[in-house]
């Protein structure tokens, strides 16, 4: 380990980049469930693209990896962390949705089957080149190199159960909400729900699917008998279902605000200037995401 760190340090000096190969810090939020908390920020050199919560569930015979991080390097570090916590091998990579901060670490899990929503493959295929280019802009070409091509070995249409060895996890595909390919993972043994980006805390929710659809999915999610959840962005573990309240309030404010502007015959620009402004101090990244959410929701609700 010491030798490796020194070697990494030498290499990183040579490459004028920070040492990237230390394992990721994780918290064991319930027996056999580990979560790495991403920072709440846009991907940038100072956070190395480490902006999403990712984790793994250890069963009797294998490990389920739930999201892999925003770069191949984060995926490799996650894999090292798994090896340091258990001798069980990763047997499945589950992607909760298409966004790059959750899937670009898949490159480190070559040979491990990838499971995702039935829409994941097409949705990611349509976007991966744009995502890759954006990551290169944000972190540099080196960090964005080696991203794996789209691969979904087992698409989930509704619900799939996976036995990790005396530990069954339930994967549920949801209708269009945060994206059109949101998938949650429920560990029955501990009552833990990996909600992916269907659950945001602290980080303003980002609408890349349907705000109205998301509110409907929130109602359905609230009926899942979990005791805790892992949000895609926010603390590593939160109480369930109370943790849904802030995002439900924001999305309701967004939808109602846009509907009011539409009813008054207002424009997108007017909606962007006014809708959900009273939510501004309650979230991080509000200015980065609220204008986009309003724009997307305006275009969605025009067809109501």
């Amino acid at each position: 380990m010491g030798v490796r760190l020194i070697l990494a340090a030498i290499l990183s000096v040579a490459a004028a980049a920070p040492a990237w190969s230390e394992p990721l810090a994780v918290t064991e939020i319930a027996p056999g469930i580990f979560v790495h908390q991403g920072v709440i920020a846009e991907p940038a050199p100072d956070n190395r693209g480490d902006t999403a919560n990712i984790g793994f569930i250890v069963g009797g015979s294998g490990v389920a990896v739930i999201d892999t991080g925003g770069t191949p390097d984060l995926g490799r570090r996650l894999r090292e962390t798994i090896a340091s916590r258990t001798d069980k091998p990763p047997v499945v990579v589950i992607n909760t949705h298409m966004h790059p901060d959750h899937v670009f670490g898949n490159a480190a899990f070559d040979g491990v089957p990838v499971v995702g929503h039935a829409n994941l493959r097409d949705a990611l295929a349509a976007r991966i080149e744009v995502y890759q280019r954006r990551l290169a802009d944000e972190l540099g070409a080196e960090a964005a190199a080696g991203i794996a091509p789209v691969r979904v070995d087992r698409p989930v249409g509704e619900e799939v159960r996976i036995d990790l060895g005396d530990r069954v996890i339930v994967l549920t595909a949801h209708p269009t909400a945060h994206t059109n390919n949101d998938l949650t993972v429920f560990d029955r043994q501990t009552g833990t729900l990996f909600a992916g980006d269907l659950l945001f805390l602290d980080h303003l929710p980002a609408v890349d699917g349907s705000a109205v659809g998301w509110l409907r999915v929130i109602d359905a999610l609230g009926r899942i008998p979990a005791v805790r959840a892992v949000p895609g962005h926010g603390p590593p573990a939160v109480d369930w279902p109370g943790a849904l309240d802030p995002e439900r309030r924001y999305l309701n404010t967004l939808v109602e605000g846009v509907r009011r502007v539409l009813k008054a015959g207002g424009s997108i620009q007017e909606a962007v200037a006014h809708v959900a402004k009273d939510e501004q101090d309650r979230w991080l990244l509000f200015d980065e995401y609220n204008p986009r959410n309003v724009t997307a929701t305006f275009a969605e609700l025009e067809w109501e």
Partner: protein
Amino acid sequence: MTGHPMRKLSLGGFLMMLSMPALAAGDAAEDAARWDLLRDMYFKDRPVEEAGNRMRIDAPARAHDAALVPVRVEVDPSLRLKSLSLLVDKNPVPLAATFRYGPASAGSTIETRLRVNEYTNLHAVGETQDGRLLMTQAFVKAAGGCSAPALKDPQEAMARLGRIKVKLPETAGAGSAADAQLLISHPNASGLQFDQVSRTYIPAHYIQSITIRIGGQTVLEADTDISISEDPNLRFSFIPVEGGSLEVTAQDTKGATFTRTVPLAAGGG
């Protein structure tokens, strides 16, 4: 309508635009050179005057979604244009749309939504009744709009394809100007969106013409291209006719025709 100031962009011109080297954003000299080239290409030797305060482009300085940039061309009510062309200088097909105004138009101000591929100037060129060309411009910071996979829910979008919605004011008194909004549900595929699974570009498939009439009189005719966002959207003004209906016809590049007729009294649809 006659007096269309545009020539359709030749294939040679199109390829030349595509192969022009990408230079650093914000380079004013390069932006000016680009506009000189476009002006020659689209308007030949005709002089193009600065519109001054008679025309103005209202667009966000920094776009929130490059595939859906709301743009309004404000035209002074005293200035009744024959046509208006909207260009996104650095897009692969710069000419987004040309609008030709008919006798039932109530003013030349137009609002639509554009795809913007990189930081660029927008130009609006109006042709006056006596054939002069007036120009105004604005700079927009946005990138990736032409190749962006904007369809958030492709299944729903395809199920809705061709649906036309017209929003009218609740009271549209005959004879006095009224504003209307037209939405056409269409992916308006740019041909520049790449699908990694099939390893192909999604074929271009977009609305190429829109005609709006009231009581048999033309309000607006538009030639539209791939710089117009998915679900093409227009705001315009017209002169209501007692007991009249607004008639919309749109055609896409696969030859499909979409129509909708909305009686004014209905006030929406």
